[in-house]
């Protein structure tokens, strides 16, 4: 049992946890800034970027995919700005125009190009394939200190760990600027904290987190984790530090519980095959949020107005 667990479940569970925590960390600021749906948009526009990267390079290697996704996120951000300014449309609608169009372009490209030989399709982009990221070389807990076996870990694991470090470092270093800019941009401007630059940097971090997590777990976890754990944490406390701590706890809980329920839950119920881990992780995070909406100690209170880019 234990060697099977290390081989089949440890790596996906860790990857799911890392992806969830990374997204939840930046998600805290998005939720407070009323920009929750930016995560949604970024996750949708990654698809055409990935397909174009595949068409150019002909491989599904991680590097080009990440660059492609990041590039299309930048294109989307510029398009949204342009449409919002020129068309004088509310930002939500401008976002809706851009991300649906780019996603549609991605779907069409995918259907028209010959991707039958590689694993690249719409379903994969939507809900990833967490279960396939197994660690064949890890045949027991002893493998965790065996360098040869560690080198065989799925590449998504070290990549996501690195991204998590970058995101956590960004938030620690710019903590003061981010918090002031989130709650009172005018004040931040007046004391020279440059809220515009920090908010653009935040969007870049969102894109980095989304793209890295997207590659490993699909867009649905990304969207859920940007919003659900931070929103649930917001209902638990009034202070920024504890809110982030709560959101990390909720993210880890969703990832681990979701993975276990998806992998083993159906077996307990007598079914023969497991269900989608990505979907289950999103579902668990939603249940946590629902419980917080019902019982969270700070579920009522003043709605913070912080609407700006």
């Amino acid at each position, binding site marked *: 049992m234990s060697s099977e667990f290390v081989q089949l479940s440890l790596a996906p569970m860790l990857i799911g946890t890392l992806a969830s925590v990374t997204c939840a960390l930046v998600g805290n600021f998005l*939720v407070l800034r*009323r920009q*929750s*749906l930016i995560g*949604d948009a970024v996750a*949708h526009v990654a698809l055409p970027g990935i397909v174009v990267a595949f068409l150019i390079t002909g491989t599904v290697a991680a590097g080009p995919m990440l660059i492609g996704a990041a590039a299309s996120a930048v294109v989307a951000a510029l398009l949204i700005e342009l*449409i919002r300014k*020129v*068309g*004088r*449309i*509310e930002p*939500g*609608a*401008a976002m*809706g*125009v851009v991300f*649906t*169009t780019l*996603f*549609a372009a991605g*779907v*069409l490209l995918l*259907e028209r190009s010959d991707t039958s030989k590689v694993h690249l399709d*719409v*379903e994969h982009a*939507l*809900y990833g394939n967490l279960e396939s990221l197994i660690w064949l070389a890890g045949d027991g807990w002893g493998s965790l200190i065996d360098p040869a076996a560690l080198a065989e870990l799925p590449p998504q694991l070290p990549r996501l760990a690195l991204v998590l470090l970058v995101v956590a470092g960004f938030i620690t270093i710019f903590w003061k600027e981010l918090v002031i800019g989130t709650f009172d941009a005018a004040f931040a401007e007046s004391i020279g904290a440059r809220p515009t630059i920090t908010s653009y940097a935040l969007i870049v971090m969102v894109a980095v987190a989304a793209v890295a997590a997207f590659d490993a777990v699909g867009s*649905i*976890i990304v*969207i*859920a984790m940007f*919003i*659900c754990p931070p*929103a649930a944490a*917001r*209902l638990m406390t009034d202070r920024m530090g504890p809110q982030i701590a709560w959101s990390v706890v909720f993210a880890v809980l969703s990832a681990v519980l979701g993975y276990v329920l*998806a992998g083993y839950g*159906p077996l307990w119920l007598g079914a023969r*095959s*497991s*269900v*989608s881990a*990505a*979907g*289950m*992780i*999103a*579902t668990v*995070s*939603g249940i946590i*949020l629902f419980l917080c*909406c019902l019982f*969270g100690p*700070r*579920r*009522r209170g*003043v*709605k*913070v107005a912080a609407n700006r880019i």
Partner: protein
Amino acid sequence: MDAFLSALLLQAGYNTALVTIGAALLGASAGAIGTFVLLRKRSLVSDAISHATLPGLALAFIIMALLTGDGRWIAGLMIGAGASAGLGLVLVEWIGRRTRLTEDAAIGSVLAVFFGFGIVLLTVIQSLETGRQAGISSYLVGSTAGMLRSEAETIAIAALISGAAIFALRRPLTLVCFDQEYASVRGINVRATDLAMMGLLLVITVIGLKVAGLVLIVALTIIPPAAARFWTDRPEPMVIIAAALGAVAAYLGAVISSLDRGLPTGALIVLVAFALFLVSLLLSPRRGLLASALKRLSFQREVHERQGLMALARGEPIYDTFTLRVLKRKGFIRADGVATLAGRGAAAGVMLDEARWSLYQKLFPDDAANAAHHGVTPIAEALPADIVAELDRHLTVQKAPS
């Protein structure tokens, strides 16, 4: 090309024609209701609604598959989708009302969680051994290929009915979008109207799932209204334009998609809609990019002409090539830069105009701050004739003693 023409002219078989007409009706209804939702600034609620259909769709499929062996009966799937989308909508409202979370967080969480749970159910369907699971995946990105006649008829009739409902409710919807308080004074139940708006949005989303797919149906309710916004500032024309654009996009998208296999209907409809949006963005006479570029160019020309004429009147040399070109084209100067007779006359006119403006600013500083001058408008165009005459009287009086 022949295939395209025959599909375009509804000659490619009864089923294709029916599907195309159904899609066009759907596009028109989606554009119309989308306009009201856009004006109410709640466009992205439809994103939550469309994603929230998935668990209901999958559950309906599972239940029907277990009971009858075939889960693809479209009306049953629509009922399931509508029920879970309705639950999602209620949750969005509930989170927004009951907790301090803002609407964007509510939309995002409902969208992600419902979709996630839907995917869990989809993997359950894959493990069911009915062998007829193919029908369900077409709801993700939309497909009209191989659509049954009964399905196409259901979609067309439902789209027609919801379009008629929007037409019947257009007055209260418009009023609520613009002025809630006035609407309630007029005896309109704002809450019920809002509910009807969201209900219609939900119905159209559910009808459109099969055609456009649940990830992309939201585009049909956002892009055509956003494009229509470029052409008009009035609500009724905007609804009509949005409905027309939506119908054209859905019609063309369905036609193109019927030509070949790897042409997903939903994606094509969205891309055609976006093309229409781009055309509006570029060419709209009111606020399109082209129109505003032309406006800027003509303003620039006016400024250069006026400054050039003032330089002529004062006998100053002109170096700026654009100014020289503008003056030359108007016939105010000769090729060697010397003012013509017309040029000297126009220059004197401009100087008089400037004298009037500066006198106006001295006499009525408050009014002058409100008048749009920017240093180019002739005063007779900006101010009433009697004030101009008054200014002229002052000018002659001032000049007389000196």
